[in-house]
């Protein structure tokens, strides 16, 4: 699983969210003070990412995290931090 592929998957999902900025790249802020996602949109983006990773890599990851709504430490604060989190979780998971 390449980081570039994961970033592309997340960007594709984020582009579909109503109210998304015109340009989406790995610097796009998702959640927190500078993010554009409310908590329900965040849930959908995270679960769509989980599903897409499952479908693309046959890998059943769970992106649940206690820091989800933390402004400073949330792994969901940007496309880049979400991609890094996906890679970290995937590295620990057995193949489905």
């Amino acid at each position, binding site marked *: 699983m390449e980081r570039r592929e994961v970033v592309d998957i997340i960007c594709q999902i984020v582009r579909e969210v109503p109210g998304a900025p015109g340009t989406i790249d790995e610097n796009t802020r998702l959640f927190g003070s500078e993010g554009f996602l409310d908590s*329900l949109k965040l*849930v*959908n983006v995270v*679960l769509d990412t*989980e*599903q897409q990773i*499952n479908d693309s890599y046959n890998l*059943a990851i769970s992106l649940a995290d206690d820091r989800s709504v933390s402004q400073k430490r949330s792994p969901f604060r940007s496309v880049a931090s979400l991609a890094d989190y996906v890679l970290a979780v995937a590295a620990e998971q057995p193949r*489905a």
Partner: protein
Amino acid sequence: MSEQPVALVTGSRTGIGRYVAEQLVATGYQVVGCSRQPADWTLEGYTHFEADVADESQVKALLANIRRKYKRLDVAFNNAGVASMNHSLLMPVATLDRIMSINVRGTFLVSRESAKLMRQRKWGRIVNLSTVAVPLSLEGEAAYVASKSAVEGLTRVMSRELAGLGITVNAIGPGPIETDLIRSVPKAAMQSLLSRLPIHGMGSPEDVFHVLQFLIDRKSDCITGQVIYLGGA
């Protein structure tokens, strides 16, 4: 994707779960059931899985199977549960852990994973099983009542969190029903419980299914976060 609606019933090997699974099949659902042991009955339209609802990987695998086979989930009925009648001062902590694990952790895991699949069609019904022992604060059922109080809390909070995904979450709280769960309860204790309900008779799985049908009806879109007690508690 399956043309038929799909329902998941946990604890479907016996009792209320089996009855509900059979009735859902009869009303046109594809039903997936699960229990820790294999089922000793079969039915066209019903598929049984051996899964422990308190085990996250087994619940995820169960829902992954439903997603692969049917690509949809309409109803999840969290029926699996255990009870133990004992004075709290005589209750081993292992009993508390077992009851909380199956009743609370199991309900949470099945609800969480079911909602992930339901949200893809922006529609779903989650129905949990509580008990009249909660409003009656029934003596001798401390762990069971604590676990079902937690289930009611999950019901109320998840109903709010999942409303935006088109999913309702409700609970049914039956009175005593003749199943494995209460077979060991002494007759005197049962009579005492029944006398505290406005309707004194034992309930039946039919009573539960009747309320379940109401809650999962397509017209029940605005009914969520509710606990409906049977017997009038």
